[in-house]
């Protein structure tokens, strides 16, 4: 009787699980398993993952099978009488030694993969420095003088109240990192504030970026494509909003992209030579403020009491322009206030300082030109 009830319940659970699986398999966007990725290491990791998984399944079948057997057959309601054995040295040695052997079987391939993963043997073709900043990533191509900030795309920020239908919601950035395929890329991780972790599943790279220390990892991407990842170490308020997008392209396209990045930087430097009008500075400043400052200081400058100071009525903002510029450009040690000199160009910095002084409920009345920022770098 109880058995019938039990088995019926069991059946319900099983059919539920099966329908969950099949419905998942029917649509490609439901991912059930780890990605195989696009690097030799990521494939090795995937195989190792499946190996350990199937070993667990087999052990599970044996253990749960024995359990189910005794639950079904050795029950009092079926008239089972309890045996009285409670010790057997032989069997206990067996089930200590057999798992040990299985573990050795796991450890051997795992050691091989780990050694490959930590390989520092061959020189990399490209070195990319990745700096974690609350809450964006800075990429520096150390041999190319190309460096930029990559943060969550506006298209994702705009739809947070209802992201339905927004493809790549929270996985889109304003400026993806571009890398060539079939080249060995060495990543050097560093942080300018708290610990972050740079993770792109398809590259099988996940490494912490630690303030003051350098970590490294490497990847050789074998397939062109767009690979998305996220920060994997809790790094404060907007930890969930600092995605990574890697655009893997052919070497020719990569070279082309480098040229265009350098041209862009030259154009930005030229515009910093001009005098800007108040109107233009305020308009640009608002964009820069909303993209870089509003996460902490609030869209209206109200801040978060006890955590992040308000802009409106702030003594620093209302005070001398040089002090205001210093904090924005260099950050404030021992606080979450980042140094924006490495993140924004002279024009953007001038615009945002001007905006903070003359908007968000403040009206100091003065203007900060890009030349003043240049002087403070």
């Amino acid at each position, binding site marked *: 009787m109880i058995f019938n009830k039990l088995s019926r319940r069991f059946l319900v659970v099983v059919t539920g699980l099966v329908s969950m699986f099949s419905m998942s398999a029917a649509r490609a966007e439901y991912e059930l398993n780890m990605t195989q990725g696009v690097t030799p290491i990521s494939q090795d990791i995937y195989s190792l993952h499946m190996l350990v998984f199937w070993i667990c399944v087999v052990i599970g079948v044996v253990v749960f099978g024995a359990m189910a057997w005794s639950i079904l057959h050795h029950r009092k309601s079926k008239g089972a009488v309890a045996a009285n054995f409670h010790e057997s040295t032989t069997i206990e040695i067996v089930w200590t030694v057999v798992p040990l052997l299985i573990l050795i079987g796991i450890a051997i391939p795992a050691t091989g993969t780990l050694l490959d993963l*930590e*390989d*520092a*043997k*061959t*020189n*990399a073709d490209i*070195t990319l*420095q990745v*700096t974690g900043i609350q809450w964006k990533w800075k990429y520096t191509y*150390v*041999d190319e003088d190309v460096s930029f900030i990559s943060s969550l795309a506006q298209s994702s920020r705009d739809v947070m109240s209802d992201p339905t239908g927004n493809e790549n919601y929270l996985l889109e950035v304003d400026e993806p990192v571009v890398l060539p395929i079939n080249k060995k890329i*060495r990543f*050097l991780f*560093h942080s*300018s*504030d708290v610990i972050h972790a740079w993770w792109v599943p398809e590259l099988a790279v996940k490494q912490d970026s630690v*303030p*003051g*220390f*350098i*970590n*490294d990892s490497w990847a050789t991407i074998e397939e062109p494509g767009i690979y998305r990842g996220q920060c994997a170490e809790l790094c404060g308020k907007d930890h969930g909003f600092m995605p990574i997008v890697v655009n893997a392209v052919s070497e020719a396209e990569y070279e082309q992209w480098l040229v265009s990045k350098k041209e862009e930087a030259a154009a930005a430097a030229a515009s910093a030579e001009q005098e800007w009008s108040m109107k233009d500075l305020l308009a640009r400043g608002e964009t820069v403020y909303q993209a870089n400052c509003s996460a902490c200081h609030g869209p209206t400058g109200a801040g978060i009491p006890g955590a992040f100071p308000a802009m409106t009525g702030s003594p620093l903002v209302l005070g001398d322009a*040089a002090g205001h510029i*210093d904090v924005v*450009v*260099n*950050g*404030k*040690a*021992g*606080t979450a*206030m*980042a*140094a924006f000199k490495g993140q924004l160009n002279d024009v953007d910095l001038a615009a945002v300082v001007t905006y903070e002084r003359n908007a968000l409920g403040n009206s100091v009345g003065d203007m900060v030109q890009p030349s003043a920022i240049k*002087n*403070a*770098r």
Partner: protein
Amino acid sequence: MSPLKLAAIPLLMFGFGFALVPLYDVFCDITGLNGKTGRIEAAEIDASQVDTSRTIEVRFLANTNTGLPWDFQPLVKKMEIHPGQVYEAVFRVRSASDRTTLGQAVPSVSPGLAAEHFNKTECFCFTEQELAGRETLDMPVRFVVGTGISDNIEQITLSYTFFSLDKG
């Protein structure tokens, strides 16, 4: 076991928690765990020990942390070196502030296994560095990579990060 004797265990373990700090440093010195580098005297280096059959690429990185109005760069980005030979790399730091500022550099070597063989005879790390307003300063690092370094390492990164020591 009497409760008083038992009470000694937590007291000891509380002390042990703090002892983990120096123990960790010792552990790191042995294993290179946190990328902290070694330091040796110039006299200890044996010039005959240079291993010219091996070439290792050493790359230099310079970072400034928040609150420090300094521009900090290595003069050369990378060098090809032989284990056992002493090399010099120069980092240039320039203050963009009009006032006097105070910073301190923290070095880090990657990969960790290289750190224990990466020795510096002259270094500007872990000492307070003061820059007058708008001052520019060249800071040399003299280093030698030990010949005992693993064959599996052909690329080393030496990074310095300047942290602000200004209070306020």
